[in-house]
């Protein structure tokens, strides 16, 4: 599993690196633009002061010739490094004063100079025409802007250094913090993979960002898997335990017939018992498969708009004469046009199961009321009986697989019917409800979303 943590580390390192790179690039970009603007302003200011200085020289020259120029040059040190040049119209030098070679070159005309000045903002150069078609040029080093420039550079480097350190630390902090849910998920997933622990959950934050959503989804997935595995385990337990009884009966019956002690007639009886018992086991398995499929959400539904009343009427019709045989009256109040979007076969099964249940648990002379009504957005199927009722403590458990209150153990049935009802209704997005009083009867309700009536 080491490679996974390395993979994560490299992701974290990559993120941090990118963060730093982006920070540095933006800083350099900002510094470059800033420097260009500063240089521009400095040059503007420097050139302006150079023009002022040159104007003074021009006036001195016009008044006193080169002597005046020299005295002004010597007594007004605008800068320790400076040069003054006088040229004729053919750019031939007539007179020159220079503190050093650099200044001389700065003052020379571009053609004469040949190569460009060293790239720095500090040289200020100005030219002006004077009498007799001559040109007076000056060049000097701008000490003030030079100093400012140096300081700016120093400060920038300092800021850059601190900024870089801050960016690296920040990047590490932010990636660590951002990736914390991911690392938690990675380690949780690894533990689930290694140990199969479905009870494991990761901490979630209250925020709604993508990683929190991922964490919550992970937890949700874990819960769902846990439920599924639990349901499957229960089903398996159920199959293991409760199929033993019918299988034992099957085996005993077959063995008895094989021993050949009885007559041919008895053997036939035993075989018939076996077939019937097999059918019961088969029915149980089919129902159980349906329940598990529905509860796991894997049941495929063939949904169409159906008249709920029609489905229920057919179920009632199926049981009508069974009920009358048992002395139970079925009273119906079925509204037409309650349209629901369902799998007809499955909802028929639900209705049949509930009617069967009601008829089965209602004693002779009792009555079963079946109604279908529209209630707001719901189509409601209500089945009430005047049967034995269900004790309050048993009511939540009637939906459980195989639950059957002791009082009704003598009755036929598999105890899976109500579980199937609930699972199928839930898979349709509906809900089931139960009201009961011991001794006076039970009402089951199924609510299914109505489809809007067609014009």
């Amino acid at each position, binding site marked *: 599993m080491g490679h996974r943590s390395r993979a994560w580390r490299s992701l974290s390192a990559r993120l941090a690196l990118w963060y730093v790179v982006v920070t540095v690039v933006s800083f350099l970009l900002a510094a470059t633009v800033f420097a260009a603007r500063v240089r521009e302003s400095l040059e503007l200011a420097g050139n302006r002061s150079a023009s002022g200085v040159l104007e003074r020289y021009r006036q001195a020259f016009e008044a006193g010739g080169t002597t005046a120029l020299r005295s002004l040059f010597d007594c007004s040190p605008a800068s320790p490094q400076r040069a003054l040049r006088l040229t004729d119209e053919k750019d031939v030098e007539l007179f020159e004063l220079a503190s050093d070679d650099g200044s001389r070159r700065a003052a020379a005309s571009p053609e004469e100079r040949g190569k460009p000045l060293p790239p720095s903002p500090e040289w200020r150069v100005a030219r002006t025409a004077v009498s007799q078609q001559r040109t007076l040029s000056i060049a000097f080093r701008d000490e003030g802007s030079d100093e400012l420039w140096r300081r700016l550079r120093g400060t920038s480097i300092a800021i850059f250094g601190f900024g870089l350190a801050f960016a690296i630390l920040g990047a590490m902090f932010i990636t660590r913090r951002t990736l914390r849910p991911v690392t938690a998920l990675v380690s949780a997933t690894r533990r689930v993979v290694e140990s199969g622990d479905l009870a494991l959950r990761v901490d979630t934050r209250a925020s709604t960002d993508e990683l929190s959503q991922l964490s919550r989804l992970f937890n949700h997935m874990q819960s769902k898997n846990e439920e599924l595995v639990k349901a499957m385990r229960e089903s398996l337990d159920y199959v293991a335990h409760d199929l033993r009884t019918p299988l034992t009966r099957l085996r005993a019956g077959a063995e008895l017939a094989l021993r050949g002690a009885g007559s041919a007639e008895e053997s036939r009886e035993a075989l018939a*018992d076996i*077939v019937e018992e*097999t059918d019961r086991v088969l029915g149980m398995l089919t*129902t159980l498969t349906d329940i598990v499929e529905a509860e796991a959400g894997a049941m495929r539904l063939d949904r169409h708009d159906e008249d709920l009343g029609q489905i229920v009427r057919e179920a009632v019709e199926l*049981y009508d004469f069974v009920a009358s*045989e048992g002395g139970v009256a079925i009273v119906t109040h079925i509204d037409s046009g309650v349209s629901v979007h369902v799998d007809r*076969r499955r909802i028929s099964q639900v209705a049949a*199961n509930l009617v*069967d249940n009601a008829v089965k648990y209602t004693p002779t002379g009792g009555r079963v009321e079946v109604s279908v009504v529209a209630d707001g957005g719901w189509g409601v199927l209500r089945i009430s009986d005047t049967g034995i009722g269900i004790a309050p403590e048993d009511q939540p458990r009637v939906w459980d697989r195989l639950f059957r209150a002791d009082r009704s153990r003598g009755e036929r049935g598999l105890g899976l019917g109500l579980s199937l009802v609930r699972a199928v209704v839930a898979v349709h997005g509906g809900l089931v409800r139960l009201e009961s009083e011991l001794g006076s009867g039970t009402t089951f309700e199924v609510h299914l979303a109505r489809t809007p009536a067609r014009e």
Partner: protein
Amino acid sequence: MHVVLIEDDQKIGAFVSQGLREEGHVVTWARNGDEGLELAERPGVDLAVVDLMLPGRDGLSVIRALRDAKNSVPIIVLSARAAVDDRVLGLEAGADDYLTKPFSFAELIARVGALMRRASSDSISALRLQVADLTLDIVSRRVRRGDRDIELQAKEFTLLEYLMRNQGRVLSKTMILSHVWDYHFDPQTNVVDVLVSRLRSKIDRDFPQKLIHTLRGVGYVLRVD
């Protein structure tokens, strides 16, 4: 009638072919899809019983190959799975009927019989049915046994007509449920037993010769013993 059975399971195959032979059919049994397809394509085959799960070419592919070749031999599908998908797939591929394993043999026989009748277009549209001294008139909806009129409710009438039209043939509970109530799944109830016992009390109780017989675990049959 010549039936081609395509089934890889030794026991099920032996049992089905023996059963069909006892019913008077000639059975050719193929153990895999390719052999089965070859046998079913031969002329003179009246019906194919095809298992879906087969080694090599599977059952669906056999059915499709037959139908693609415009072969209209009636086909009954056998499948271990009750899933609706399988049923739909089988019927869409061109099968005529479908049975889920484990199936009742009576049902297989009945369905084979029904398909054969359909195939030979021997329509069962008689308007007056008679078995021994029991008569049923479809049009006037009158039922008489001997010289006595018998009053039947609608469901009882439908069931009796169904039994009489299938005289001597065993009808399973599932078949009765789907014929009389149009219920195509078993709601795990005893409604069929209740209806049959009511019908029997009207038809047989007062007569020495019993016509409706129960084959426990298998179904019901109307016949003259």
